[in-house]
């Protein structure tokens, strides 16, 4: 089977999925525009340069596009062999955030590594690594997934190690997100439903317990339940986001015309950037953005289905990568609208941040890679 794959790859000079490419270009473009609108005031105020965040983001996109191009060209089966290396590298980087000389803290979170003036967030890389690792290991285990000790425990331990390290970086939401994506992959890989229920029942109380260990998390949950209980404290961001949304109304105030970003809405250029987008583009814009990510999901998932059941690894990888991007986007949007308590999850391709942008673009590159190599028979079916 491996030989067949190699053979197929060499013979087919297939082109990638143009729809998927166009979707990514659209999302990145809209994201850049929104970032500019959301950050020029803050950038001007804080760095005396309205373009500060915009130019940085452009640079990140540049780096990301190069890496995405490489990702879209590398042989995917080679990736399977590189998985252990990738795991070690990611774990090392994650662990490095605890080394005083390298770590870089922002707002109480030690999520960053400082390398030559630039900071890198290994937990973003962890999302990618875990998806690749789980796809590889769970597809390899194949039908032996019912063997709990040999098939489920080892990957579970790896997931636990990742999650623990991310959690210790004070990045509760990414940790939780990693768990959710992992559970999804376990679920889809086909482990017995009762194992899955067991896992799920383990995670839920653990997560609730961890929420209660940090005061700010409890506050965020309370603020989620009743933003007005602490209007100048934790509830402030939630209320400010609501103001932005309500002021956007159906048609929006127009690009660049939002007002909440003028200091009313903290973090307008990062985690809450979608509130700025919603205020300026209105409900119409929100629907458009949701549709874009939804289209990404449809395209990604149908691509995944093309690999099933012939290529379980590619199926799971496609599914995992698509979910990573789309879930993050939806959770972030849910946070902004107040459906979910405030978390630290960025909006992929929108929020300001190099690590998130580069990793998201690499994921996009991998998806394009997968779309090029999809079995010919299934093409065009969906």
């Amino acid at each position: 089977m491996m030989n067949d794959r190699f053979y197929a790859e060499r013979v087919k000079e297939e082109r990638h999925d143009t729809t998927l490419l166009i979707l990514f270009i659209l999302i990145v473009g809209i994201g850049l525009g929104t970032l500019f609108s959301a950050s020029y005031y803050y950038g001007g105020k804080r760095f005396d340069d309205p373009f500060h965040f915009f130019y940085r983001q452009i640079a990140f996109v540049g780096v990301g596009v190069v890496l995405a191009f490489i990702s879209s060209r590398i042989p995917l089966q080679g990736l399977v062999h590189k998985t252990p290396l990738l795991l070690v590298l990611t774990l090392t980087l994650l662990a490095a955030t605890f080394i005083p000389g390298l770590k870089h803290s922002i707002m109480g979170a030690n999520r960053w590594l400082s390398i030559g003036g630039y900071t890198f967030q290994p937990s973003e890389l962890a999302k990618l690594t875990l998806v690749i690792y789980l796809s590889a290991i769970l597809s390899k285990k194949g039908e032996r997934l019912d063997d709990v000790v040999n098939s489920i425990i080892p990957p579970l331990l790896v997931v636990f190690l990742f999650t623990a390290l991310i959690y210790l970086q004070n990045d509760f939401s990414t940790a939780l997100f990693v768990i959710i994506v992992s559970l999804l992959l376990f679920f889809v890989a086909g482990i017995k439903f009762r194992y899955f229920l067991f896992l799920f029942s383990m995670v839920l109380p653990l997560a609730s317990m961890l929420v209660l260990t940090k005061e700010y998390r409890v506050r965020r949950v309370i603020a989620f339940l009743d933003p007005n209980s602490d209007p100048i404290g934790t509830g402030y961001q939630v209320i400010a986001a609501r103001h932005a949304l309500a002021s956007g109304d159906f048609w929006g105030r127009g690009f660049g015309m939002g007002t909440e970003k003028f200091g009313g809405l903290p973090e307008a250029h990062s985690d809450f950037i979608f509130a700025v987008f919603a205020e300026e583009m209105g409900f119409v814009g929100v629907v458009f953005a949701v549709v874009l990510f939804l289209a990404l999901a449809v395209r990604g998932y149908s691509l995944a289905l093309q690999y099933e059941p012939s290529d379980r690894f590619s199926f799971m990888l496609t599914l995992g990568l698509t979910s990573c991007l789309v879930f993050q986007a939806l959770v972030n949007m849910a946070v902004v609208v107040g459906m979910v308590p405030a978390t630290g999850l960025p909006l992929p391709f929108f929020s300001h941040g190099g690590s998130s942008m580069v990793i998201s673009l690499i994921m996009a590159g991998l998806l394009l890679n997968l779309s090029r190599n999809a079995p010919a028979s299934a093409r065009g079916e969906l």
Partner: protein
Amino acid sequence: MSKATRRFGIVIILFTVFVLLLVAQYFKVMVLEPDKPEPERTIETSSERGPILDRNGRILAMQTRLFSVTAWVPNIENPAYTAETLAPILKLDAEMLKRRIDQSRGFLYIKRKVSPSTREKVRRLIADRKLPGISLEPEYGRNYPEQDLAAHVLGFVGTDNVGLDGIELTYNDTLAPSADAEDNAPVKYGNQLFLTLDLNIQYMAEEVAQKTYEEYDANSVMVLVMDARNGEILGWANSPDFDPNTFNRTDVFAKNNRPVTYAYEPGSVFKIFSIASLLELGALAPDTEFYCNGYYEREFPNADTVHINCLGTHGTVNAQTILQYSCNAGAAYASDLVSKEEFHRQITEFGFGSKTHLPFPGETGGIFSEPERWSGRTKPTIAIGQEISVTALQMITAATAFTNQGMLLQPHIVKKIVSPDGKIIQENKREPIRQAVRPEVAEASLLMMETVTADGGTAHRARIDGIRMSAKTGTAQKIDPRTGNYSENSFVASTMAIYPTDDPRLITYIVIDTPQGDEFYGGRIAAPMIRELGLKLIPYMGIPTENEEVIRHSGVVKLKQQPQVEIGASLPDLRGISKRRLLPLLSHEDIDAIFRGEGWVKSQDPEPGTPVTKNMQLILEFE
């Protein structure tokens, strides 16, 4: 369908439900939500409060932009580190700062309006990401470049740029940027406000006030200078004073704008108004005589005896000598000629007992009780300036009646208000209030007051050679608040001077509250200060003095003194004479002069030599 595909189907369904819920929630919050946020949420645009300038456009108050160090506490990761880093730069106590950060949950001003160098230090730290949660916010502040000069007139603004005292308070809405300016204007400007004050005169007045304040260790000293012709206040000195840049470091007493807030008994200076009132009422004639044997005494039917001491035994006095010697007995006897109601009404004509409405906060109208509450001694006592409380502003305003043919003028401190684009919004001009006395009474009062500066008059120390000066001194006893009686050692010494007597240009008034030491008579300590001030004002204003061939004008231009233009039985040759010197023609009894153009007379109609007849018309063309 494989197990994986089936499972995947479940995921898709959950996913779809989530997306639907998400979109529904967005629809609810964005479109349906009834509590739309108030769209008038104020947007931070930069705005500039208008400047305050003197009459010549010299800046007294202007806008500054300084930065404040602020914190958004939820974003501060390490309060201890933040406090330790910021405290030395901002010269704050680190412990205290940490506590403030810990106690706050949202927005916090760490230090407002820091210096540019401090701002730069903080800005670098922020740029290096050393201070998460800390930002620099621009704040618009007020600077008073002349520091304590005219401080009481200007007042001051609070840290949020709202006027708290003085003109800054009363004209806050004028100076503050208009709320209905264009919404998207990048910078909104307030109006410019020109005061009637002349910075040079203000400086002269303050110099004299401060010197007097220190020399006599007085409670306070006020020096006011007014343009006698239009009621514009040119100088407004009040010691002790303060620096509005650091107003919160000064005690309340120094910030008190006493010329409007402090009511005191004026003493003998008030005699000019009581004698003028008696003349106006017709009860007193210039030649009515009284006999002063050192006191005033009157028995009332109810056996009450009113006794008022005089400072000397002046013998036979009349209206003029009452003023010249400041004879208490004479003034008191003269007041017996009118009823208390008449006297009250006429004193009220001068504006006493009511506010002048000069735009200052906290103005008092003084204390001038209704005649029905007067005791037997009230009328004669008011005649000598006691039992009535006035403000310095009321006194100087009342004097405009003497310099404007009996017409009382509205005092002005604001000359004009100019919009940011240069349009004059409001301009205050000479504003007559009422005819307080007949022109003859006004003129007689000035002439009588002139004798006060003659040898033997109480104000001879105010006299300046070469100029005719009308003046009056006063030394009032203050009420001792403990006993409720007049004190034997607390006085208000004052002197008012109007000059030149023949063509009044200036009214100056100095009030020394509770001078310490052996000297406390207005004539001894206040009058010399009036002279000192006059010696500076006269050349500055270019007021001609008699015995100098060449006079200094503003210290720059030397002018040959011009003889007065006199018109006798026939018209003189007016050609080549400046318009300025011909201005008295406008008030000539017989001639109806019509001026055309500016400069010097080019032609006149009728010709020189034409006999002057009643109501003749004289047309003068200037070039």
